[in-house]
């Protein structure tokens, strides 16, 4: 695209310089032409809203948000850690494993009665006798 140029008044040196430069322009290799073509397409796409720009910006736009969401999720999982609600294997020495939660009962302020009356003692004796009887019945069956 040399049509905009005029060599009127140019000296021999200027003409030779321009000719040498034009030859070097014509000899731009294919790889460089490809890079220039891609750059030009991106530039034009920037003002037409063509896919070249959208594709270029697509994942880069959402990548920071995705990374942030992932880091928040990881942080939440780490903070949740051992105090979570997920089921754990019972440990014999742990009171919760035995079904007793005295600290929780005290903290909750619940009232619990200690078996002191005769009626309640009788009830527990009956429960024990019934359990023995039930065991012996099953053993005979």
């Amino acid at each position, binding site marked *: 695209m040399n049509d*905009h140029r005029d060599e009127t008044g140019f000296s021999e*040196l200027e003409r030779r310089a321009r000719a040498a*430069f034009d030859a070097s322009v014509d000899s731009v290799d294919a790889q460089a032409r490809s890079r220039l073509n891609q*750059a*030009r397409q991106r530039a034009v796409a920037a003002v037409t809203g063509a896919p070249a720009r959208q594709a270029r910006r697509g994942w880069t736009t959402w990548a920071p948000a995705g990374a942030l969401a992932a880091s928040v999720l990881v942080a939440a999982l780490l903070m949740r850690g051992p105090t979570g609600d997920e089921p754990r294997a019972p440990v014999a020495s742990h009171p919760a494993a035995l079904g007793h939660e005295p600290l929780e009962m005290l903290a909750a302020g619940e009232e619990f009665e200690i078996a002191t009356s005769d009626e309640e003692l009788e009830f527990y004796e009956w429960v024990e006798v019934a359990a023995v009887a039930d065991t012996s019945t099953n053993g005979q069956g």
Partner: protein
Amino acid sequence: MTRFVSLDPAVRSRDDVEGATTKETRLDAAHARELDRFLAGVERRALRIAQLALRNVDDAHDAVQHAMLRLAEHYAARPSEEWRPLFFRILYNGIRDIQRRQGVRRRFFGWLPGTTAHAEEDAPDPLEQVPDAGPEPSRLLETDEAMAELQRALQRLPARQLEAFSLRCLEGLDVAATAAAMGCSEGSVKTHYFRALQTLRAELAEVWT
């Protein structure tokens, strides 16, 4: 020689040219095709001019890509006859930025073996690496040698003289458009250009006779 419309004073400052006070535009299809044709016509020349100034292929590509994008985003809506001086002004602003970075790299990392500064000096000059496409080999060799000689001479020019010579002689801008692209007066362009020619005549007197 085609006369280019002088840029109005509002776009003469670097900040304006770099888009600080302009807004991005959206083009219709016809206007976009015109912009594409303009860029396609100027891109290889711009690459060679950037290579002359930067002496590094990748840096030259960066400068051209930056100029294309800037022109499209901020000046595509302006009359197309203003594109060429605007494009080269943006290109040279980018070239100066890259030259500053090159200077910093050389200052801080130049003593390290294998750094970019050394690599640039050791790398073969791209303008001397003319590939096998184009005219017949004897003609190619002749033009290749002529360009190598010219490049050696151009490397002796101060930056502003090189700009004036590249834009005025190699790219073919008239004095007004060269002044607009360089961000200086027409008188300064003539002075830089004249001095550049003097230096080049002295440098090339023997080899181009």
